[in-house]
């Protein structure tokens, strides 16, 4: 029996708010100018990047004469005449940029697709034409592209070594374990590919600079541009009311922003730059390829006794970016003996960065695939194997989980999915020419929070305006802030307007780490509390509200609030105003910090054609628990989109690398495959009610990056159940199944 898919507007369960339609729904379906490059600037000139055709070497000569001669070309910038910028550090080193290599900083080429020229012209067609007329001669050197390339150095920086988690005696316990798994896994390079292209528009008015750019952190961009241009951040305004998808790619400032702003200053004219789709593969960050070795030991009755997770990640020569997902994988299941280690491999690439569930996507894939292998080795049901090893405390520190509804999620999803029809033996289920397999895996995402500030303005009409420079990347943040404010003030949500994505408003958190609802929402709750207190503890309505305004002798009541997560102090707000992320909550009273995670369980059915090995996923079922759910409609969409992301990661997505040349091959949306409508089956979403009063005053966990964790493992595990073959290197593609007996 196939379960009926949950409707797009679900009935709210316990501890869930109302499924209101999105705050900006009408504007989005009518094509209103909401996104950065939709915003108009007076008489802009168009800038177009020209990027390097080699990954490593040096520019010997760059000939722009033919391009300069084209009517409508205003100026062409190369390393020979580039506008000056201050060198700033990578954001993990206290700076602002996502890649510390400075474009047009000199003749050296350090990675594929590096900016080597900027054409500025009256219009895009002229700029593109001119770009094609620029001739460059390079001295080319052999690049180190990835794992195993000559010259790629493996390192373990101290900061990464400090993240290694250990418990008990792994080596001894593993040697003694009666049942063992030792397997290697890999995940490919992936690119976020939001449909909104990266762009920067910059206009100067005297000393003041306005920037329109898709950004998950406008206050970071404001401070970052100021730092790179050596100007006062007070003089920089960033506007980006809505983000057309980001997934991490618009999180931290790239070198493009100050470059475009500097060109606008040099030419004394507003500049509009849109990064072409292929250029976006190297002019923003990406999810680097990873490798893993998992060693599990267990008793015959299914208790884990030893767990080791070793990971390797690629990064650039210039920056040591890592995701180090061992933090999650070592604390997922009860196990007394644990070892873990992550190493970086330095290659001639641009610096990677965060992409939706940066650590969990690759590391949980490896762990959950290994868990399935162990369950098979034990001849045990994979759900029961996880139940036996479920834990309410960290096996590393002993700190408790504030709440953990993992097994409730498994039980609900298993029932809806029909898991009891699964045959444990591979290749046992067939329908005509199709081999059918079932698989499951755990999803998890840590609850993180950042400081946030907010302003609320109340007028005698009873209308409230909430101002917070948080960001809506499609998550439903406007709607969540509207609902939180309306609930706190006891007013109709239609009386609440929300302003975000603009540095004219007080800073909110980065739209990353699934932190917005918990962090920005807590600031909104606090500022609404303060507003109520100004009016004697509750918001009067109608004439009484008018009278209250008369008594106060004003037509406008304004409040401002700063919220800091537990364990963070005033300095977190100061960091926020400087566009820095501050940090997670610290230890409380010397005790280890409690673990805060949202959980889910995901089930997949795969069908593999006996002859062609075509892989289809006719259905996915996921059950998720994320504390208080502000809006079940937008929350369900987050889960839905996440699981489809997971499907893409299992079967489709990979940026292919020419290992000889260190260049991406499929840098476009025709060849970098993401799921399209025809790929997507029935997706059943179950929202498991959960109450967690410890995480924050709203009881909200982050959910935007939860559902795409685990999906790839669930699908790969189902492929094993269908075919008897373990595909340990993602994505699972037809060619990897050719040796399955027909």
């Amino acid at each position, binding site marked *: 029996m196939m379960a009926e*898919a949950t409707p797009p507007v679900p009935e709210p369960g316990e501890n869930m708010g109302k499924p209101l339609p999105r705050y900006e729904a009408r504007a989005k*379906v009518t094509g209103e100018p909401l996104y950065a490059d939709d915003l108009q600037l007076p008489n802009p000139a168009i800038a177009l990047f020209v*990027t390097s055709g080699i990954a490593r070497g040096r520019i010997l000569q760059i000939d722009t004469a033919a391009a300069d001669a084209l009517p409508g070309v205003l100026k062409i910038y190369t390393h020979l005449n580039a506008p000056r910028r201050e060198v700033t550090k990578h954001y993990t080193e206290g700076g602002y940029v996502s890649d510390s290599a400075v474009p047009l900083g000199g003749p050296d080429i350090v990675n594929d697709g590096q900016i080597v020229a900027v054409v500025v012209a009256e219009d895009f067609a002229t700029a593109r034409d001119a770009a094609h007329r620029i001739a460059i001669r390079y001295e080319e050197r052999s690049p180190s592209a990835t794992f195993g390339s000559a010259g790629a150095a493996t390192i373990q920086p101290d900061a990464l070594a400090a993240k290694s988690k250990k418990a008990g005696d792994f080596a001894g316990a593993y040697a003694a374990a009666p049942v063992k798994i030792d397997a290697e896994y890999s995940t490919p390079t992936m690119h976020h590919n939001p449909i909104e292209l990266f762009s920067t528009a910059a206009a100067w008015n005297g000393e003041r600079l306005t920037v329109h750019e898709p950004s998950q952190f406008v206050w970071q961009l404001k401070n970052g541009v100021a730092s790179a241009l050596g100007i006062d951040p007070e003089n920089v305004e960033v506007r980006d009311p809505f983000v057309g998808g980001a997934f991490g790619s618009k999180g931290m400032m790239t070198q493009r922003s100050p470059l475009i702003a500097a060109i606008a200053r040099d030419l004394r004219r507003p500049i509009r730059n849109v990064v072409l789709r292929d250029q976006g593969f190297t002019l923003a960050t990406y999810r680097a390829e990873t490798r893993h070795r998992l060693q599990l030991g267990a008793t015959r009755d299914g208790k884990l006794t030893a767990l080791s997770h070793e990971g390797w990640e690629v990064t650039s020569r210039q920056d040591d970016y890592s995701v180090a997902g061992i933090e999650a994988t070592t604390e997922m299941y009860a196990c007394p003996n644990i070892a873990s280690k992550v190493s970086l491999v330095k290659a001639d690439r641009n610096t990677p960065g965060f992409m939706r569930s940066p650590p969990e996507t690759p590391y949980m894939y490896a762990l959950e695939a290994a868990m399935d292998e162990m369950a098979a080795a034990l001849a045990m049901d994979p759900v029961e194997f996880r139940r036996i090893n479920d834990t309410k405390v960290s096996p590393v520190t002993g700190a408790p989980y504030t709440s953990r509804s993992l097994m409730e999620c498994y039980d609900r999803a298993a029932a809806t999915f029909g898991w009891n029809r699964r045959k444990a033996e591979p290749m046992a289920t067939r329908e005509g020419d199709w081999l059918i397999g079932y698989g499951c895996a755990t999803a998890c995402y840590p609850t993180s929070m950042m400081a946030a500030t907010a302003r609320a303005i109340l007028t005698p009409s009873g209308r409230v305006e909430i101002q917070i420079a948080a960001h809506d990347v499609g998550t439903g943040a406007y709607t969540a802030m509207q609902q939180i404010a309306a609930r706190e003030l006891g007013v109709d949500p239609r009386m609440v307007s929300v302003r975000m994505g603009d540095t004219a408003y007080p800073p909110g958190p980065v739209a990353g780490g699934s932190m917005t609802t918990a962090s920005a929402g807590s600031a909104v709750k606090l500022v609404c509390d303060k507003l109520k207190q100004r009016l004697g503890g509750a918001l009067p309505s109608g004439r009484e509200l008018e009278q209250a305004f008369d008594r106060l002798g004003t037509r406008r009541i304004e409040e401002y609030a700063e919220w800091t997560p537990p364990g963070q102090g005033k300095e977190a707000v100061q960091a926020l105003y400087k566009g820095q992320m501050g940090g997670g909550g610290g230890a409380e009273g010397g005790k280890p910090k409690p673990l805060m995670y949202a959980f889910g369980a995901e089930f997949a059915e795969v069908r593999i054609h006996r002859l062609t090995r075509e892989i289809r996923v006719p259905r996915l079922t996921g059950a998720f628990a994320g504390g208080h759910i502000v809006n079940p409609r937008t929350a369900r969409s987050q889960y839905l989109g996440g699981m489809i992301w997971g499907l893409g990661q299992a079967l489709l997505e990979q940026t292919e690398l020419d290992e000889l040349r260190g260049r991406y091959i499929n840098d476009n*949306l025709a060849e970098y495959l993401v799921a399209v409508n*025809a790929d997507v089956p029935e997706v059943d979403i179950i929202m498991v009610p959960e109450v967690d009063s410890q995480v924050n005053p709203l009881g909200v966990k982050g959910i935007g990056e939860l559902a795409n964790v685990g999906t790839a493992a669930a699908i790969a595990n189902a492929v094993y159940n269908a075919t008897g073959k373990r595909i340990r290197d993602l994505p699972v593609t037809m060619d990897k199944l050719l040796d399955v007996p027909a």
Partner: protein
Amino acid sequence: MTQNTSLPISRRGFIGGGAVAISAAGLNARAEAAPASAVDQNAPHRANVRFTLNGRSRELTADTRLTLLDALRGPLALPGTKKGCDHGQCGACTVHIDGSRHLACFTLVAGLEGREVTTIEGLAEGDKLHPMQQAFIDNDAFQCGYCTPGQIMSAVACVKEGHARTDTEIREYMSGNICRCSAYPNIVAAVKQARGKI
């Protein structure tokens, strides 16, 4: 990617020392410069075009290289139509031309003489949303909303083409529009809600 490949092109640019490499075509800095005499031949041409845009007659003197997408997002000031790839791969720029769906990034303004163009801004009748727009709201058929104008224009055409009879058919005929947020099942639900009302 040179504009006119029949032009005589100097091969001198290719000659260099053993260690010298020259990149391939495209904006990855192509190797050759067209000779100076070719610049004039490749200089922009302009064409006078008259067409209907969202019910209004428009006349434009357009650079013959100008795409409908860049015209909408630039001089015509209708940025509802989105640029997602500029290569006909994502569907974000889908508009209607003479009632059927077309990609604005693949359409040159110079070729629009006498044609009728409808964009997302022209779909509603005043304050009254088109049934497909309402269905997208009712089914939460978008998240970030960036691909949404293209999805809605495709969805309207999909129904009019008679390609919305089953879920499978809707999925197939809506697959030219990528939604990276992956609202696909909700888009299918929206098309089903609106298909009887168009």
